[in-house]
């Protein structure tokens, strides 16, 4: 199998939401001596991009998109382990995601994480009921481009504002874009909380992440 076929197969396994095939072709790529960075950028990336487009056009549904994302990540794990030291893969951006203090709801955040990954973002999900200090600490540690704050309850919304204020106080606010979401959030709230953007659903969140980074 030549390089082009391997790239095409990797693309196809994302488009077919098939993690098993994705793992198989990732291994074949390595056995055939293909550059792992090229396999990601010419094989997996176009597949997941097209799947994302299809989702936005309503041709593909959420479970398919998410399984496509799993296929990509499975293959990526295999390929990334073979990237020679000193070389790095380009990413669209690094996103830190979490549900704020006092709020244990995570399904919305998880959907956003899947969609961001599918769109080529590197996502660090810090979970639910995340204390404000942890957000600050993780921003320092991981140096994300975007911080995404989720809250389902109206009672926990204020914690989003707290995170923005804490980032400000720690002198980190200018380094990151903060985006907010969740059933209780709104455009007005985003302004009040001092965030950089708000999205009402997962597709909107992905667009927003690109937008705030100027991509």
């Amino acid at each position, binding site marked *: 199998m030549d390089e082009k076929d391997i790239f095409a197969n990797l693309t196809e396994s994302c488009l077919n939401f098939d993690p098993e095939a994705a793992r198989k072709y990732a291994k074949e790529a390595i056995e055939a001596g293909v550059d792992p960075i090229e396999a990601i950028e010419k094989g997996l990336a176009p597949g997941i991009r097209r799947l994302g487009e299809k989702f936005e056009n309503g041709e593909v549904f*959420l*479970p398919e998109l998410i399984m496509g994302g799993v296929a990509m990540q499975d293959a990526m794990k295999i390929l990334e382990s073979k990237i020679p030291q000193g070389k790095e893969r380009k990413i669209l951006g690094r996103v830190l995601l979490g549900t704020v203090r006092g709020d244990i709801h995570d*399904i919305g955040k998880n959907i956003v994480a899947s969609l961001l990954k599918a769109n080529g973002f590197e996502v660090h999900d810090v979970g639910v009921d995340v204390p404000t200090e942890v957000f600050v600490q993780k921003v320092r540690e991981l140096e994300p481009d975007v911080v995404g704050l989720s809250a389902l309850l*109206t*009672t926990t*919304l*204020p914690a989003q504002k707290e995170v923005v204020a804490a980032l400000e106080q720690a002198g980190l606010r200018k380094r990151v874009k903060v985006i907010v979401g969740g059933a*209780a959030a709104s455009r007005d709230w985003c302004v009040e909380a001092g965030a950089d953007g708000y999205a009402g659903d997962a597709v909107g969140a992905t667009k927003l992440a690109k937008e705030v980074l100027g991509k």
Partner: protein
Amino acid sequence: MRQGIHISRPLKILTDDELYQLHVASVRTLEKTGYMIEHMNVLEKLENMGSEVDYRTKIAKIPEQLVMEMLGKVPTKITFCGRKKDNDIALERGHSFATSTGASVYVVSPDGKYREGTTKDVERFARLANALDNIDLTNGMIESQEIPHELRDIYTASTMLNNTEKHYNYVTHGSEGARAIIRMAAAIVGDEDRLRERPIVSGAAPPSPPFYYDKTALDIFLEWVKHGLPVRIGSLPISGATAPVTLAGTIVENNVDCLASIVISQVVNPGTPVLMGGLCANLDMRTGTLAQASPEQALMAVCVIQLAHYYGLPVFVFTGMTNAKIPDGQMGYEKVVSTLLPLLAGPNVHFAAGNLSSAIATAYEQLVIDNEILGMLRRIAEGIEINQVTLAIDVMEKVGPRGHFLEQKHTLEHFKKEHWIPLISERRSVDGWRADGAKDIVRRAEEYVQEILSAHQPEPLSEEIKKEIDHVVKDAERKIRCKR
């Protein structure tokens, strides 16, 4: 006593065998997968009663035997009371009552604009719901966004209790809120013992599917349970996201939540009145949002009701759902689909009058429109009465061929009971409608809202009780401020 409606032959979509399969799947799951409970005392109690508890993961594996034993301790009948007996509702098999919507954030104005709810809105919504005939009890309705979030539930509850004579079911934000609302209600009826006899308030604190009771929710739940006051159980599983994508799997998930809550409540305080419930909805696979007004929701609500009947428990389900953002055509058809099927199955409490945009918003006009929709659907659920009088053979003989029935005493005597009479629906001729300004339903509802709000005033509480409620609010406020 409020009459509500009586559904003599409840609709069934599941066979007894299918109900048994759902039950078996639920008890197996509770026994094998277990339930994560963030509460040391409860875990210890469950272990003492034969559950297998892992204190590290906080998961209790609850055996079927304990479930069945605890089910046997739940009262089969509950009466929700109003301030006066004429607003009491007896939640007995086949008797069905309607509630207003849960705690919304936004009020939608007649021009479709969204604005945040205020304390004035809480008071006005309470008065409007108090006046509407088809609404038998109230729920959170709207919360005042002017009040700091940590005190919002307490202030909302005090405003509601001052402005409604109907039973009030409310999900507080924390256990301090639950304690406060119980104290306020006790002040209204006399004391806490009297409140257990005449519960004018009831609570709820849904767990987080799948199979997880977090500390905040459980503390609220236990507050109601310890006081022996009625509490609604069940959760809000999202089919495809927080529950299996299959409807059967989602129903099982909710049923596991119900059974776990029943066990917890009866282990902590045997005989606590519990209402089965749940709002099973699904994930919209195009957008990842919650599809609360789906056809699947209507089907699953029937199953929750049937399961409650299977266990011999009273049942409270939310219907009257819509994903529409304003009172438009989508609102109309979604509300009917969401409500009619479950209503026919005979829930003791159902509906969510005023609900818009998956309960994020409400509108005064919507509350009135929902009162109207309820009227129509209730008429359907009441069915057709067949007897010698209704068959009207004598009257037909009297009138004979080519006569008419308008002059008959039989018509005069029965028209109000046999026919539903609309309040705001447009049934005039086109000319009549035009001459009156060609108003749509929202405009007509708006006029009706003005009419009620300018005239209707619930009987005020005595100055003494008002003072006591204020005292409870201030006391709770102090405690919450101290904690922070």
